């Protein structure tokens, strides 16, 4: 197979978009001090409504709007339960996922495409003509641009506006924010609503663009991966971009490996990963004087595994059963969680707020 790196990198951007959208919504929610574990449920609800409305009306915009609304409405259940009935956020979020999975399966019964919907590409004039970078970055559909725009917007509102300051204050210390007279519950409800809308959009991107079809469980854990990426990003918008594209890279790599059948692509990827691990170890041991293997466990693990893989390849290993490759995105998510410890979490995250306490 010919590997076209430009197409590959362009595909990474598309593959990352749903996770990115869901994660930026959840980032806002978590910054307001609420842990909504129902992302997967809101996403899949968005996916089914986006698919049905999009294909029922023949309008992609209608589909995306309906999906965002569906996700946001579902999130209101979570908001009502956690903010007004003071339920445990972890359990309620899980409940939202279970409920969303059931609801989407119920709504999606026999959902088939009546009008085929294509989301048109919008090449950005001039910029998309730049060789290599143009096709990778500037020749996508509107939702890809929207996802990046949202990152910038969230960053701006959160760190450069009064509203963002209040949101962060509520997330860091809800009692103090309450004492200052900020409407804690209202702020949090707004954040939850926004997060639900983003998750709904993310789901619709899967069912309208990435997979273009509807099947039960189509989101396949993307909502959970979005949650992991928020942790990876240390609740910072621009680091989210790195995390989501890393994940998208693994997904695209895995899909290409399945289609390819040879291991050339995996050889390159593992070679690069091993080199990166070695560089990280080296720089750490120079700058921080931390050269001991235990201090660089992730690098050591990656290097050892790469050596094992290299030996297997030298011994004549030709293929990996393709089924096993679909584990890669999930394993990569675990590796990322292990490698980068969470810090900087909003102090009130997951705590129930009640004015009397």
């Amino acid at each position: 197979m010919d590997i076209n790196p430009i197409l590959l990198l362009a595909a990474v951007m598309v593959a990352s978009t749903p996770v990115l959208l869901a994660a930026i919504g959840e980032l806002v929610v978590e910054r307001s001090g609420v842990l909504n574990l129902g992302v997967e449920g809101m996403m899949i609800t968005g996916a089914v409504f986006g698919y049905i409305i999009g294909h029922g009306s023949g309008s992609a915009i209608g589909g995306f709007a309906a999906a965002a609304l569906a996700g946001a409405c579902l999130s209101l259940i979570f908001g009502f339960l956690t903010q007004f009935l003071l339920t445990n956020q972890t359990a309620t979020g899980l409940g939202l996922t279970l409920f969303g999975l059931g609801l989407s399966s119920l709504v999606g019964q026999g959902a088939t495409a009546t009008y085929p919907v294509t989301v048109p590409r919008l090449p950005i004039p001039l910029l998309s003509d730049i060789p290599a970078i143009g096709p990778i970055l500037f020749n996508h559909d509107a939702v890809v641009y929207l996802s990046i725009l949202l990152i910038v917007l969230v960053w701006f509102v959160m760190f450069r506006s009064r509203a963002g300051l209040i949101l962060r204050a509520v997330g860091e210390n809800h009692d103090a924010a309450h004492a200052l007279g900020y409407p804690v519950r209202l702020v949090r409800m707004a954040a939850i609503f926004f997060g639900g809308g983003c998750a709904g959009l993310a789901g619709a991107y899967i069912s309208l663009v990435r997979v273009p079809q509807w099947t039960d469980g189509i989101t396949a854990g993307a909502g959970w991966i979005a949650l992991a990426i928020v942790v990876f990003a240390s609740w910072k918008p621009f680091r989210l971009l790195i995390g989501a594209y890393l994940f998208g890279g693994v997904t695209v790599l895995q899909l290409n490996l399945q289609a390819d059948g040879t291991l050339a692509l995996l050889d390159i990827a593992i070679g690069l990963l091993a080199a990166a691990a070695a560089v990280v170890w080296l720089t750490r041991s120079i700058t921080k004087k931390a050269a001991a293997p235990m201090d660089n466990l992730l690098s050591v693990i990656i290097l050892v595994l790469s050596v094992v893989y290299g030996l297997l390849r030298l011994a004549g290993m030709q293929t990996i059963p393709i089924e096993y490759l679909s584990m890669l995105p999930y394993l990569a998510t675990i590796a990322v969680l292990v490698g980068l410890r969470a810090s900087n979490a909003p102090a009130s995250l997951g705590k129930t707020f009640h004015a009397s306490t």
Partner: protein
Amino acid sequence: MLRLEKRPQPSTFWTYAAPLVAVVVTILLGMALFASLGKDPVGAIRAIFYEPLFGEFSFYYRPEVIKKAAPLILIATGLAFGFRAGVWNIGAEGQYIMGAICGAGVALAFYPSESRWLVFPLAIIAGTIGGAVWGLIPALLKVKFKTNEILVSLMLVYVAQVLITAFSSGLMRNPEGHGFPGSRNLSQYPAAANGELFAGTGVHWGVIAALIAVAVAYVILTRHQFGFDVRLAGQSPKAASFSGLNPNKLVIISLLLSGGLAGLAGVFEVTGPAGQILGSFPKFYGFTAIIVAYLGRLHPVGILMAGALMALTYIGGEVAQDREQLPAAAIMVFQGMLLFSILGVDVLTNYRLRFGKNEVR
């Protein structure tokens, strides 16, 4: 205006009444849902809650309810320990699948053997260890690297699902299966079969194990130091750390325990009702068990009753599919609503409803 006032102590009355109110609320919400789907709401509720127990074909449905309840109770009992201590094992589904894979793997390794006293116990041990090890991964990562156990255990569910699908068409495929995916049928392999112990009752070894687990959990929770530690860690993490409780130990033990029990449930399921390793191996017990644990108020006896009720909604859901053409997914929505109701009604246990404005203090 309506407002909530914190009770000095949780209300004893509402502790017991809340689950009942939640069930009633869910039934009302469910009736609204079924009516909106154009089905007869009363008929559907009757099909779910009455027909399997007392209807014309209850002799067939009752054993099925018991078979469904056993894994739910086993898994939920294990989860309850962790939930009480604030350790969120959400990956019970993965631990359950790994238990089934390991148990079935050992049983299949001995395939033509006839010594039941060797194969069946070995399969059970292997399955329990398989589930426990799968639960140990998020525990160790949490202790060593402070990763979030919710996300790691969940990612491992997807990994386990890939593994079982891959094994069913590769490593463990039935050599006499004409190339179809799926392992040998273990329920037809006498040395490993987990059949009914008393004909027509639905009681298999998994049911016995579930009852034992509930009894042991009850004793541990009320009479044993570990149960006290768990409750202390859940109610007041600060007090727990002052009393010298090691939170890491608690994380490891609760995940080992819940993983092992989920694995155990997996073995009994794969050697009994399910019969084989297959990509469509009965799914969702691990997730439904979360609802069961909450509905049972994280208490072993409550979980026993909640598991039976949840199993009833499964079987009743099948009856309603036949009688009222109720879509299968409607029952999932119904179960989700049950979890929302139990969580929502719980507010009355810790808070009092008051009319009027907040007093100035």
